[in-house]
């Protein structure tokens, strides 16, 4: 017993010793470089300030000073958001409305759950872009964001929040977005995932980006397949077992949620996202929904593989990832949908807005944001058991800090496991 205690003490002592060998200057340099994504000259004012804070034991203040630098938003948050915004999942994605909104929410310290259900977006403030000839249209193309990016302006300084999302319903007119849901109804996310297909990809990538789970991880063959569409063959190759053991698993959960996107589509020729309630008459701007507003690709009348499959009649959805005692129920940690301050939208139980609130309210969303921030700042893998512990811990901290992404970045950077021993 005494030996075991001595061993534990020795292990603890060696760990703390390894950490205590880092000088305040070294600690400050690492913290600043990881939170801003760029290197800094020795002796720069910001580095000196952070060093002094660390010397005074104010590590939280040091992290806050690092996230106050424009590069935190212009580089680190931008790259994290860019990776989440489109199907390529690349840091090289051009700036778009998804990443601008993500940066804005981080800068303004607003509740990050709104990213999934809020009726707002961020764009460049034209009063700060004078002389740069940046186009203002953000609903028909990405030129506004692209040209702002190429003008080398600091997004940290020029972005402004615009309340009330809009969609185009003709070449020249826009209407309020009938089903606003933060970045889920951004042009970037919709154009990446509502393009062609059957709107299942929107569900898949919402889970991939905001729950940090690829579809094979949340497939559940034991869940109900009552919502699986008619276009899914129940006996592929004449073998019903194949459907039961493989196809069904993904479709139970995915098709359950798919209804949320039933009224949405993307028009590639005009580059606009469309909703059946927009009132558009021109086919290039209309979702061309049926009598219920459901777009054709949801039911695929010309591609029926199984007559008894589910026919979508509205934008309702069901949560098949919440089967009692299932792994999914435990992983996702479903709770009440995220609080909605918009009285006009709060009562909705269908559509993307309600879907976004459900996702944002889950425990998994907080943990997933912790994981994404960890990857962006700490940049090293943890063992599976460490991941569970660290991301759950940071997820709780994220919630306790009113879902502030900026605070989450700071918490992750200061986490004892973030920096590998022996760092620069």
């Amino acid at each position, binding site marked *: 017993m005494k030996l075991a205690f001595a061993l534990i003490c020795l292990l603890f002592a060696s760990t703390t010793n390894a950490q205590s060998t880092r000088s305040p200057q070294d600690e400050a340099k690492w913290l600043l470089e990881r939170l801003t*994504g760029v*290197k800094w000259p*020795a002796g720069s004012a910001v580095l000196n300030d952070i060093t002094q804070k660390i010397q005074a034991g104010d590590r939280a203040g040091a992290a806050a000073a690092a996230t106050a630098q424009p590069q935190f938003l212009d580089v680190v948050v931008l790259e994290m958001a860019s990776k989440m915004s489109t199907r390529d*999942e690349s*840091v*090289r994605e051009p700036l778009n409305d998804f990443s601008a909104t993500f940066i804005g929410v981080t800068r303004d310290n607003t509740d990050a759950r709104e990213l999934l259900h809020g009726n707002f977006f961020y764009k460049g403030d034209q009063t700060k872009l004078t002389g740069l000839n940046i186009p203002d249209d953000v609903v028909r193309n990405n030129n506004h964001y692209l040209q702002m990016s190429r003008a080398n302006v600091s997004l940290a300084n020029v972005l402004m929040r615009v309340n009330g999302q809009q969609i185009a319903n003709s070449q020249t007119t826009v209407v309020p977005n009938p089903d606003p849901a933060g970045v889920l109804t951004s042009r970037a996310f919709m154009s990446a995932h509502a393009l062609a297909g059957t709107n299942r990809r929107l569900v898949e990538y919402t889970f991939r980006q905001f729950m940090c789970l690829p579809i094979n991880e949340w497939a559940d063959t034991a869940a109900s397949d009552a919502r699986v569409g008619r276009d899914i063959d129940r006996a592929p190759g004449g073998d019903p077992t194949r459907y039961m053991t493989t196809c069904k698993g993904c479709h139970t959960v995915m098709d359950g949620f798919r209804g949320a996107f039933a009224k949405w589509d993307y028009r590639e020729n005009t580059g606009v996202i469309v909703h059946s309630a927009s009132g558009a008459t021109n086919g290039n701007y209309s979702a061309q929904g049926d009598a219920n507003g459901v777009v054709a690709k949801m039911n695929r009348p010309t591609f029926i593989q199984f007559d008894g499959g589910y026919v979508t009649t509205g934008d309702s959805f069901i949560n098949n990832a919440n089967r009692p005692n299932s*792994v999914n129920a435990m992983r996702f940690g479903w709770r009440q949908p995220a609080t909605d301050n918009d009285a006009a939208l709060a009562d909705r139980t269908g559509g993307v807005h309600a879907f976004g609130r459900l996702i944002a309210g889950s425990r998994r969303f907080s943990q997933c944001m912790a994981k994404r921030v960890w990857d962006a700042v700490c940049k090293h893998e943890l063992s599976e058991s460490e991941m569970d512990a660290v991301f*759950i811990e940071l997820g709780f901290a994220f919630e306790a800090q009113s879902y502030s992404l900026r605070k989450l970045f700071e918490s992750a950077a200061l986490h004892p496991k973030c920096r590998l021993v022996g760092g620069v």
Partner: protein
Amino acid sequence: MKNLNFKKWMRIGALVGLMTGVVTLHFNCAPSMFQPTSFSQSSTGGGSLGCEPNCFEKPASPYTLMTSHQVFSTMLNVTGQTGAVSGTMRQEYDARTGSLADNDNLASVNAPLQMATTSLAGEVCNSLLTREQGLAANARQFFSQVDFNRNLAGNTTAAYTLAIENMARSFWGRALTADETQVLNQFYNEFSTEFSAGLSAADQVRLTRKLYLSACSAMLSSFDAMIN
């Protein structure tokens, strides 16, 4: 005494049983909440040359590679040019982005990446030199003792030493090591003797700028400047 021993053994047995249960539940039966990040989630994943996903294992290193955007932003930051991107810099960045990293995996470092970094550093340094040449000597950040209107012989070695020390502190965040100083001094000697031979007087003056452009580009694109 016998009874006490029995109770003791019962307690130990119960404790072992409980720990076994916890370990089994936690590590075997209970599903893991998170899976390690696979590089297959990245678009080009393993590298900038179209390397297939998972072709490089990510090393467990305290150092990570900077992405193309981070490298460019770093170059601008350490040379004091943030927000002042010239057309030629932007053009060079656009041309080289594809060869620079899109992930933080150190194993992605390859020759095209290093060459692209050097080319980009060349443009950033070119802009830096142009800016500093236009300033009074005491207003310069890097080349305060360099007289760009004279040839190398007309400049002091102290001016060179100060310039490389300034660049090391800014680009690498630290002082030069003895080895690095030796290499950079050797470069200076070779440059001033071998390259200046046979040049016209005007070209010899231009050589002063070329020396500092070369040294700046080399230091700004060194491995130390690519990682954080």
